[in-house]
């Protein structure tokens, strides 16, 4: 399978990339790792006339702790968060999720920014970013703006990144107290999209009372979903069995899975319920470790 004909540019600065993107308009598409876009182009689901490759733009691939945040450059490869001890010690959820994204070869090239900007509810990073309360920095010719992850996903393949803009950085607040997070998904085989996936992040005060909870769901809604009622069921509790059962029940009720080859909607709701419970327990264990 070979993509339809297109033109290709690999600008060497972000400014050049933005100018090109604005010049060409909506016939241009940004190429990051290419591991979502190129398969779609090979299947002719996407036929952009011009690819603007960000590979030669310096300063878009980094992970650093700064201003109370974990900052991840949009062109950071999945493998680079997976293998960063600094990141996975403080956010073990990145180790959980990386292992479940496709396979090692794909993670060598696929980028975190691309995973999000692709706008696919079947991708795994969106749920993780929802749980962690990430902010996304989007750059255009007029400058930068920041949007919350809750305002990022518009619909199927549609995000807050507008024509002429590029997603440049993901910022994740680093909590000061006790916290834990975890992600898991059920997949039919290694490398598959999730039948259902759940990301959980909880913060506890010194008494073990939950002060903040983030729960994101993968592939059980047209857009990546925040399980708000589940979060509320945990905040203010000691994350006891009853609170966990409520949170799991709400997540299974509030998602909107569709019947497909991965299972029917009822099965997927059960998957979400079970995973929500397990990921809360795992987050709790990590918070108390």
């Amino acid at each position: 399978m070979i993509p339809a004909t297109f033109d290709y540019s690999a600008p060497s600065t972000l400014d050049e990339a933005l100018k090109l993107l604005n010049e060409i308009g909506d016939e241009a598409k940004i190429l990051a790792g290419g591991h979502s876009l190129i398969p779609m182009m090979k299947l002719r689901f996407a036929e952009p006339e011009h690819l603007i490759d960000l590979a030669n733009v310096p300063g878009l691939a980094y992970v650093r702790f700064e201003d109370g945040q974990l900052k991840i450059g949009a062109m950071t490869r999945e493998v680079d968060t997976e293998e960063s001890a600094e990141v996975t010690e403080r956010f073990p959820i990145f180790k959980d999720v990386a292992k479940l994204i496709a396979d090692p070869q794909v993670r060598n090239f696929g980028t975190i920014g691309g995973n999000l900007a692709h706008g696919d509810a079947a991708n795994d990073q969106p749920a993780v970013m929802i749980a962690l309360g990430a902010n996304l920095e989007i750059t255009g010719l007029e400058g930068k703006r920041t949007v919350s992850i809750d305002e990022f996903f518009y619909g199927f393949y549609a995000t807050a990144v507008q024509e002429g803009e590029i997603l440049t950085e993901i910022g994740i607040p680093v909590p000061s107290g006790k916290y834990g997070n975890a992600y898991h998904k059920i997949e039919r085989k290694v490398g598959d999209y999730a039948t259902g996936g759940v990301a959980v992040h909880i913060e506890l005060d010194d008494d073990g009372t939950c002060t903040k909870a983030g729960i994101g769901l993968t592939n059980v809604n047209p857009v990546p979903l925040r399980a708000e009622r589940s979060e509320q069921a945990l905040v203010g509790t000691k994350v006891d069995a009853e609170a966990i059962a409520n949170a799991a029940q709400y997540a299974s009720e509030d998602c909107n899975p569709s019947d497909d080859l991965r299972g029917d909607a009822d099965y997927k709701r059960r998957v979400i319920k079970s995973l929500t419970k397990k990921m809360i327990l795992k987050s709790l264990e990590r918070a108390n470790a």
Partner: protein
Amino acid sequence: MKKQVTININGEDYTSEIEPRTLLVHFIRENATLTGTHIGCDTSSCGACTILIDGKSAKSCTILAIQAAGKKITTVEGLATAEGPHPLQEGFKENHGLHCGFCTPGMMLRAKELLEKNPNPTEEEIRWGISGNLCRCTGYNNIVKAIQYAGAKMRGEELPSTEPVFVE
């Protein structure tokens, strides 16, 4: 529309005028006529097209040749040296790590990066490490043994037994 690219494959520069839509695997097989890199599923699932780009394993059916311009590629043809086969090639041979051989080039190149990052992987780490490479013949046990053998050889340790293990 065509662009001139130069890609270094196994130490040799290959320059061609190509369309940007040319996939790296096609460049390797057709422009450089190195046919050891295979096309299996053509959807980045099976790993038969795995090569190394600047030492990192990649699926060459899902990368444009033009993205690899100026980079160093290693294919299966670049594994052996004048001294003989690469330890991975020896490991696959000694442990019957292949039947039909279609997945083998990709499997070995993936294992090469794995062993470079983690010279002494556990069996589980090897199995996760080759989770992007499908083999429809062996059932993977001998592939895991082949990689363990290569690891031992590269670490300069005593080589594990290559006797088959029979399950009762």
